[in-house]
């Protein structure tokens, strides 16, 4: 079994997110980190490998993004991936979710994975959607927000929560699966793994290397035009109490609730 894990570098949650008003794109400077949801996808791949039910030949981390995205790949490798592929090209800048999914699918086609895993959402934007786009281009079955995944020969049995409760779905491989954060507790990389990550093979590719059509990506190839950013209607800021003396804090809460007749 060959597993590809799609990863993405996102702004660190602790850093303020902002849009560059002149381009309408996310300002991608500042602190970056591996998308936390993607660490669950790597962990899921590792658990398949270590589970012994099927033999995993290789786990490959794949990303698309500027040169800094290499750090996300290093992190992915330190968490267990055997090697990584970095798609980077100026022509990709400004790609929307469909263009991005198309580009990633072209990278994945070269690898012919049996299983593609990714995090169900990224901290910086597109929710739930990229997996379904990639799957349609690869013509593979797909399921998102999976919280339990059992692999047997040529097949997956997945569970997820949907509109009406928990669904159990059986899927034939190859398949594209996005995982939720309840699927596992990602391990911490060992110091040795962190130090060794930069030595693992990293394949840097451009759009010509993966044979993707340049007119289907980038700003020109994207079908959504995003712009006209505005601030949401501001709700009056709430009162904040820093709890120092809990008895005092509780008194304040009680007074606040009582004022609003919530203790009647």
């Amino acid at each position, binding site marked *: 079994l060959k597993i590809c894990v799609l990863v993405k570098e996102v702004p660190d949650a*602790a850093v303020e*997110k902002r*849009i560059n008003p002149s381009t309408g794109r*996310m300002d991608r400077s500042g602190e970056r980190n591996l998308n936390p949801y993607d660490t669950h996808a790597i962990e899921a791949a590792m658990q398949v490998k270590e589970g012994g039910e099927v033999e995993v030949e290789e786990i490959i981390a794949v990303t698309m993004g500027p040169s800094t995205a290499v750090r996300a790949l290093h992190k992915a490798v330190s968490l267990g991936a055997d090697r990584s592929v970095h798609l980077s090209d100026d022509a990709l800048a400004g790609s929307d*979710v*469909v263009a991005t999914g198309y580009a990633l699918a072209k990278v994945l086609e070269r690898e012919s994975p049996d299983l593609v895993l990714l995090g169900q959402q990224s901290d910086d*934007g597109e*929710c*739930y*959607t*990229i997996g*379904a*786009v990639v*799957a*349609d281009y690869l013509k*593979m*079955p*797909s*399921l*998102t927000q999976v919280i339990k995944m059992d692999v047997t020969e040529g097949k997956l*049995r997945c569970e997820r*929560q*949907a*509109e*009406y409760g*928990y*669904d*159990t*779905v*059986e*899927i034939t491989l190859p*398949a594209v699966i996005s995982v*939720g*954060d*309840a699927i596992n507790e990602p391990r911490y990389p060992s110091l040795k793994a962190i130090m060794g990550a930069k030595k693992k093979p990293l394949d840097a590719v451009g759009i010509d290397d993966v044979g993707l059509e340049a007119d289907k990506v980038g700003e020109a190839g*994207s*079908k*959504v*035009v*995003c*712009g006209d*950013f*505005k*601030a*949401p209607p501001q709700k009056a800021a*709430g*009162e904040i*109490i*820093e*709890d120092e003396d*809990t008895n005092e*804090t*509780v*008194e304040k*809460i*009680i007074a*606040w*609730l009582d004022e609003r007749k*919530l*203790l009647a």
Partner: protein
Amino acid sequence: MSGILAYALHYEGAFNKNSLGGVSEAARLAEELGCEAHAVVIGDVSDDLAATLGNYGVTKVFRCADAPEGLAQPVVDVMAQIMDSEGHDYALFGGGLLGFEIGAGLAARLNAGVTMEVTQVNVADGKLTAERPIHGDSSISTSSYKDRGIIIGRLNAFETAAPSEASAEVEDVTVELSPFSTQATMVTRGEQRGADVDIEGADILVAGGRGLGKPEGFELCEALADALGGAVAATRAVVDAGWYPYSTQIGQTGKTVSPKLYLAAGISGAIQHKVGFQSSENIVAINKDSNAPIFEYSDLGIVGDLNKILPKLTEAVKAKKG
């Protein structure tokens, strides 16, 4: 012919509330655009039930009885074929997990533009534009489409219209499913996990999240809810972890509530949870992380250790109420 096609999810003989919102929104927008809105239903839907979508303003309902309901990819096949043959310019989905999957797959199939988590759709120069809050709801971005557009609503974003007496024409369609669309099969659907608890009628909800630390942490919430005369709710994270019943879950794939008081303990307040309770009259949050997003939209925020605060608050509420 241009037009808008809305997907209507159904289960056990009733349409999904968010789908009815999406259908209503499609009809409203079509009227403004001067075109028709249609709906699509998959699987076993009676003539009568399908026709009731006309109550919300669509003129025609396409029914594909042969495709399985509950999985996204067969619906992508069905909607792509209908949109191509009928010339719909837009597809619209009410808030819901399946809508995200279908919409994204459909956008890839049709090479269309897609916007998710949409909170408002407008008509400008004879075309639709979609507003979407981004980056933790700190900014709103407007999407427009070069060609066809796929619009996926945020949970509860689209209001269901007051039903009229109008009925929709039901047209059966046959679609050959893509080979990969039939590679996933539903084994069980809609399994309920944990006790069946009714929280929708409660005026006061005490909700617990991962910050409770362990399943037993819910005992603190239960004691406070008892004192306040309310019920206990939960986030998806703790429900998926098996700490509390699915029936108490608030948010994207759970329930939507608007009590007089929503007291969130150990909840960071991710968008997927927020959409389920943001219309509550009063929101109180207790969290030890002062950077938790929930403090940005709570009316009263307490930065502190819930293990210290909740027991004392429970006692104080009891004392106050006598």
